[in-house]
């Protein structure tokens, strides 16, 4: 029992260790440099990552509320990796920040929440994890305390997340009324697809829709992404979204499996709307963060398309895509973050002639954007291709055509940034940016990930083997 507890919850315990360690340091009047703190946290994160891969085990504890499988462990590792990258990238921003420790406290708390969410085998556990991962995020969005935008974004974030939680809970409460239990297995066994269940499911779906910012539940996304500090934005767009998607797929595939035909059409509509609106709005954005926000909405559309395939390949592709998406989006945000912290410039036009002064960063951003657009040989190509292929298994060719056309629209706005960097003339391009070591490492990890994950199929096959 105790052994199980330590073995199954080792990732969570590591994070708790970080949280308490930081708290004690803070309480114990430790006068540490921010860099020291960051290095310590990074080291522990690396240890967590390594531990996640070490022992394979599955099991349930806490009265079947918390379960771990190799797949869940892998999902956790993916999120840890992403968090590590973000932590490395936030160096520039946190270096002189007054509240670096608090930032890490909140960051790790949200990650812990996600871990619990992933491991939940029960809607109560899921809800707790979800809230643990969103409430500190709102505080993180407000982390630039003196900036108006930051507070505004935080307020939008917390109101919309609370609203979506309310929707989700309303659905869950009805589900509980129908089934009499909130455990996944009991619900899965009892669901038949009656109208009341569909009502409850729609509510749950709407809640999820908010969290993953699918159209028409996306209205908060762009504002929050723009207002938040960049590391937080990247965290929001990648890690938190990825975690919710992982759970979403579990909920859809194992809890509401028997309602598959019903939710296929819902996902169909959501997916089309999300792709179209996300893309169309992304085209007219001038601010890099907003632009990436809308592009991430569009990405969700593709993900929903992949999920609608309802097969092993769908889950695999989703997890694979999230992994790739972490690399690609974080590479993009990494560069944006460097530029923003050096010159406080976030407009697309500011990137004109960027290549002349910062060739390496320009290439990094370009590769990241190409990966987001899904162009070979970057991993994004594989990720997107497999997602659409998974969706195509249903034989809905209209949907696939819409998706394919949306890829072109998305390519248009991604290449717009590349064009600004490489082709447009600018009399006074941004000066050379000095990249400190840790963001450099983060970018190298990202680029390596982008280039390797796709061409080398090991990751996909590993995930596939775990899923099936």
């Amino acid at each position, binding site marked *: 029992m105790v052994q199980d507890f330590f073995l199954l919850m080792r990732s969570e315990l590591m994070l708790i260790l970080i949280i*308490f360690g930081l*708290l004690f340091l*803070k*309480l114990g009047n430790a006068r540490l440099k921010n860099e020291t703190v960051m290095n310590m946290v990074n080291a522990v994160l690396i240890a967590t990552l390594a531990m996640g891969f070490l022992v394979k085990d599955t099991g349930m504890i806490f009265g079947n509320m918390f379960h771990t499988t190799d797949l869940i462990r892998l999902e956790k590792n993916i999120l840890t990796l992403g968090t590590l990258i973000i932590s490395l990238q936030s160096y520039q921003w946190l270096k002189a920040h007054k509240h670096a420790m608090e930032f890490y406290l909140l960051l790790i708390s949200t990650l812990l929440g996600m871990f619990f969410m992933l491991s939940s085998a029960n809607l109560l556990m899921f809800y707790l994890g979800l809230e643990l991962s969103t409430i500190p995020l709102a505080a993180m969005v407000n982390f630039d305390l003196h900036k108006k935008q930051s507070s505004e974004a935080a307020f939008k974030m917390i109101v919309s997340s609370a609203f979506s939680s309310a929707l989700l809970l309303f659905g869950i409460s009805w589900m509980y009324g129908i089934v009499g239990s909130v455990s996944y297995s009991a619900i899965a066994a009892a669901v038949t697809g009656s109208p009341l269940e569909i009502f409850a499911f729609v509510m749950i779906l709407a809640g999820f829709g908010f969290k993953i910012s699918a159209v028409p539940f996306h209205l908060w996304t762009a504002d929050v992404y723009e207002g938040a500090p960049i590391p937080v934005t990247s965290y929001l767009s990648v890690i938190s979204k990825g975690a919710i998607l992982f759970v979403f797929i579990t909920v859809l595939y194992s809890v509401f499996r028997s309602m598959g035909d019903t939710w296929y059409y819902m996902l169909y509509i959501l997916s089309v709307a999300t792709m179209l609106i996300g893309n169309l709005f992304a085209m007219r954005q001038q601010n890099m963060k907003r632009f990436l926000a809308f592009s991430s909405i569009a990405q969700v559309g593709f993900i929903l398309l992949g999920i609608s395939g309802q097969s092993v390949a769908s889950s695999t592709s989703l997890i694979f895509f999230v992994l790739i998406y972490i690399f690609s989006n974080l590479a993009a945000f990494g560069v944006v973050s460097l530029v923003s912290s050096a010159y406080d410039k976030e407009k697309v036009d500011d990137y004109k002639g960027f290549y002349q002064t910062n060739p390496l960063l320009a290439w990094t951003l370009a590769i990241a954007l190409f990966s987001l657009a899904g162009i070979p040989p970057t991993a994004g190509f594989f990720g997107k291709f497999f997602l659409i292929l998974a969706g195509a298994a249903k034989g809905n060719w209209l949907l696939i055509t819409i998706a394919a056309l949306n890829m072109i629209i998305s390519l248009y706005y991604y290449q717009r940034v590349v064009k600004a960097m490489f082709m447009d003339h600018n009399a006074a391009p941004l000066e050379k940016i000095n990249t400190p070591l840790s963001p450099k490492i983060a970018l190298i990890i990202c680029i390596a990930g982008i280039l390797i994950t796709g061409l080398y199929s090991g990751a996909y096959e590993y995930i596939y083997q775990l899923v099936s």
Partner: protein
Amino acid sequence: MGAGSLIALAIAAVAFSSIALLVAKLVTKATKNKQKGEAYECGVPSKGPNWIQFNVGYYLFALVFLIFDVELVFLFPWAVVVKSVGWIALVEIVVFFFILFLGLLYAHKKGALKWK
């Protein structure tokens, strides 16, 4: 008696207070006076908006209170069953309080509990 008694009590309270107010209204004689409607500030004419911005410290306390009050939500069910559950309940509540206590310490450290 059941939950109905609460409603009965509430109705009694409303009846009591409204009758009292009504009686008072009936037996008193209202007089008009220009100064009477002014806010009472010890005879000095009131200056500026009265819905003033008050010390932010109140908010801080309200926030800290909110968290600690909610902790009581968990403590009540716990307190009822603690004897039947046994020592593990103590362990769990120690963990719970430990975390809360750290929160309190943190608030103290940050000066949230200092009246400014």
